[in-house]
């Protein structure tokens, strides 16, 4: 393979084209659209959608309140269970959660637009900063929350609501975790993540300390000494490696690093993007980087996943989004070799299949894809060094009980860093909420 210069450059599309490409994926519902959508809700009893919601939002009730133009009440119904109901309305894979459970699917194959209705109800609250919650009488208890992502923010908000004082430690300059630095830009436009965080912090009682590196600047033991309880919502700090030769070649990038840069860039047309982009992986991050590369003007984007469409972490909806955007998805191929001397030029895969024992094996056929850039999107792992040696883990993640309690006294954890973490904002919010309720109960007993 010849080593021509990699075709990576900014400005493949005009600024206007890029802005259009990164506009709202699902524009908000107008009032009349919302009323029509809300009218489709049957107000089910013990509703399957609510059961399917990891945070247990009473969906029929919030939709009924939309119907009666009680938008503030509707938002309260949502946010009292899920303080990040605004973000979840944008990023939840509703097609495999509430909307999949909707009874409307049985006869019409078209669920109530629960996600869009949730956004309709909550948008005005964040826009106008309408206070819906007030803190209980102060308890004098202090709790350390490590990580300013969805799990940490949810935990901090609930604890503040219950009257405790929180110190929230954040690694980055901005709060929000993957809501701010991950997630495709077209899912959360107009700096919504920060508007939501401002709203969450406006409850009071949450002191934010930024640019604090957990494991370096502070340790679990220190926090346990200084605070009445500790919540770890530290996410997954390390990126999985492909474990093939030449992985350090220029042009072989971590998808999440590029997405973080993309999210922070106000003029996305200035971002350098490869002409031929290959993404390795099958989760939401793979879809996000593939679609965004395409929308920045890459001519050819390939996703390669070692298993089939059913095993992909990305939902069918997400896969279709990528296909509609002109991304090619190759299934059943795993990377074996990166080509190039000074820069990656191509990536080679071996075709795979499941053997009779159900184990993934190669079948002796190869696939070679030219690449100006290769993105690794095969998952993240817990940064093991950041945690106390005696904290129990399983499969590289923190073990917790039903109430998010870890094996360490006074320490709870939630979000992507725990065993049950599933890369969903909504699950992280629930972890934080459940932990806060357990912490509160413990501190009062």
């Amino acid at each position, binding site marked *: 393979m010849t080593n021509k210069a990699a075709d990576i450059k900014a400005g493949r599309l005009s600024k206007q084209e890029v802005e259009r490409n990164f506009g709202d994926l699902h524009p908000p519902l107008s009032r*009349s659209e919302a009323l029509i959508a809300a*009218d489709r809700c*049957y107000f*089910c*009893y013990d509703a399957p959608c609510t059961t399917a919601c990891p945070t247990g939002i009473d969906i029929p009730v919030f939709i009924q309140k939309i119907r009666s133009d009680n938008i503030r009440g509707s938002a309260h119904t949502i946010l009292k269970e899920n303080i990040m109901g605004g973000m979840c309305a944008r990023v939840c894979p509703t097609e495999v959660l509430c909307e999949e459970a909707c*009874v409307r699917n049985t006869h019409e194959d078209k669920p109530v637009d629960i996600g869009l209705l949730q956004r309709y109800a909550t948008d005005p609250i964040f826009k106008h900063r309408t206070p819906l919650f007030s803190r209980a009488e102060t308890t004098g208890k202090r709790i350390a929350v490590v990580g300013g992502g969805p799990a940490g923010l949810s935990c901090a908000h609930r604890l503040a609501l219950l009257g405790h004082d929180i110190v929230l430690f954040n690694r980055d300059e901005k709060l929000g975790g993957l809501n701010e630095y991950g997630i495709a830009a077209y899912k959360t436009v107009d700096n919504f993540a920060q508007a939501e965080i401002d709203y969450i912090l406006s409850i009071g009682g949450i002191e934010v300390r930024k640019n604090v590196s957990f494991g370096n600047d502070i340790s679990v033991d220190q926090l346990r000494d200084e605070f009445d309880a500790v919540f770890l919502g530290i996410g997954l700090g390390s990126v999985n490696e492909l474990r093939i030769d030449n992985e350090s070649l220029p042009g072989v990038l971590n998808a999440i690093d590029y997405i973080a840069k993309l999210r922070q860039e106000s003029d996305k047309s200035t971002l350098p993007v490869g002409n031929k982009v290959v993404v390795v992986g099958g989760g939401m991050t793979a879809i996000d980087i593939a679609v965004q590369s395409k929308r920045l003007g890459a001519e050819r984007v390939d996703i390669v996943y070692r298993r089939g469409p059913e095993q992909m972490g990305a939902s069918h909806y997400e896969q279709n989004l990528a296909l509609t955007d002109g991304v090619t998805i190759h299934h059943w191929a795993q990377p074996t070799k990166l080509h190039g001397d000074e820069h990656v030029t191509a990536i080679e895969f071996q075709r795979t299949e499941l053997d009779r024992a159900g184990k993934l094996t190669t079948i002796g056929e190869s696939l070679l894809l030219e690449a100006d850039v290769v993105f690794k999107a095969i998952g993240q792992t817990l940064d093991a060094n950041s945690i106390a040696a005696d904290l129990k883990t399983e499969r590289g993640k923190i073990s917790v009980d039903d109430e998010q309690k870890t094996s360490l006294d006074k320490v709870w954890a939630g979000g992507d860093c725990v065993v049950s973490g599933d890369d969903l904002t909504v699950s992280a919010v629930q972890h934080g909420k459940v932990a806060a309720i357990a912490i509160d109960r413990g501190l009062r007993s």
Partner: protein
Amino acid sequence: MADLTSEFLGIISPNPFWLASAPPTDKAYNVNRAFEAGWGGVVWKTLGEDPPIVNVNGPRYSALHSNERRVIGFNNIELITDRPLQTNLDEIRQIKRDWPDRAVVASIMLPMNEQTWAKYVPMIEDTGADAFELNFGCPHGMSERGMGAAVGQVPEYIQMATEWCKKAASVPVIVKLTPNVTNIVPPAKAAKDGGADAVSLINTVNSIMRVNYDTLTMYPTTDGMGTHGGYCGEAVKPIALNMVAEIARNADTADVTISGIGGITNWRDAVDFLALGADNVQVCTAAMVYGFKIIDDLTDGLSTFLDDKGMARVADLVGKAVPSVTDWQYLNLNHVEKAIINQDLCIKCGRCHIVCEDTSHQAITQTVNGERHFAVIDDECVGCNLCVSVCPVDSCITMHPVTTGIDARTGKAIATEKANWTTHPNNPMRKQG
């Protein structure tokens, strides 16, 4: 194809759908459009004495909406025609000349003295109108002046005015009744006794639609003040059907010809009225909500329905359901029904369960063997039809008579003979056998 030709008091129209006396029939322009669209007849917007009345120059209408903004109920405070009498008479004359195959009925409202009736009735009949309809129904505005519903609420006045009209008229006289009474039979009987050839009903129901949530005044208002209007549209149909059926089944009035009015929006509504005793029907609100084109579904749907029933003409349908209407005391108390939920159609919304659980007889399961499953518990089911009423899926829950064996709820054998309240042992007034 069934023949939709309608004969009402000897007046022939190509179908039994007339536009009721209301804004759609106020002018020749509208009536021409209605006839072009295919309506069988019109009852002209009510004529009164000169000088004509005046209307408010602000909101005359308001609606009760579904969430999709479908109009379910409709309210108006418009009065009778506000155009000079001669203008209306000239237009009626021209319309009747241009559309000889359509019914054109003159609605009139006059003060309660005989001379006025003697003066105006012949003048109006001279236009060639096929009949009169006496507006004893409008509940707003005109009733404050001793006309409209103010007459319709006093049977003696109905009879008196009907007699005056009959004396002066040679064409048939229809008396339009107000529903704002406790019992519709005495007004209908009074019309008959006054010599009326038919009654038409219902006119609108006294109503206030809502308040304005910003100003906390009633809504709508005319410069900050409002007044009750007349309610109509789909929401009033059940009220109208009851009144039509009451007249049709009462011995004193059973022979009275009826023009049915009240919320008719599609052909099924028309079937309701005709089967419960109306000889033809009149429509207003549906036209005001959708325009005249709805006549297509009304005629086509009715024709298809008659074909499906093997009926050759509209008259075959008239009154078919009347014998099924009776007093509560004559209902067979030995008859037992139970609901059955078709599990193949059930979408598992749980609405039947929760309404039965919260508000009725705890007769529908929520789970069976730990699974979400809604089924009727015969031991508790009284056959009330609530679950059928709330189920969002058509025909998913149905009622089935239990004709043999034991009623699981009462533990008693199903009786084959009928028995009603008049002979029930719990009835202190029961007839002694």
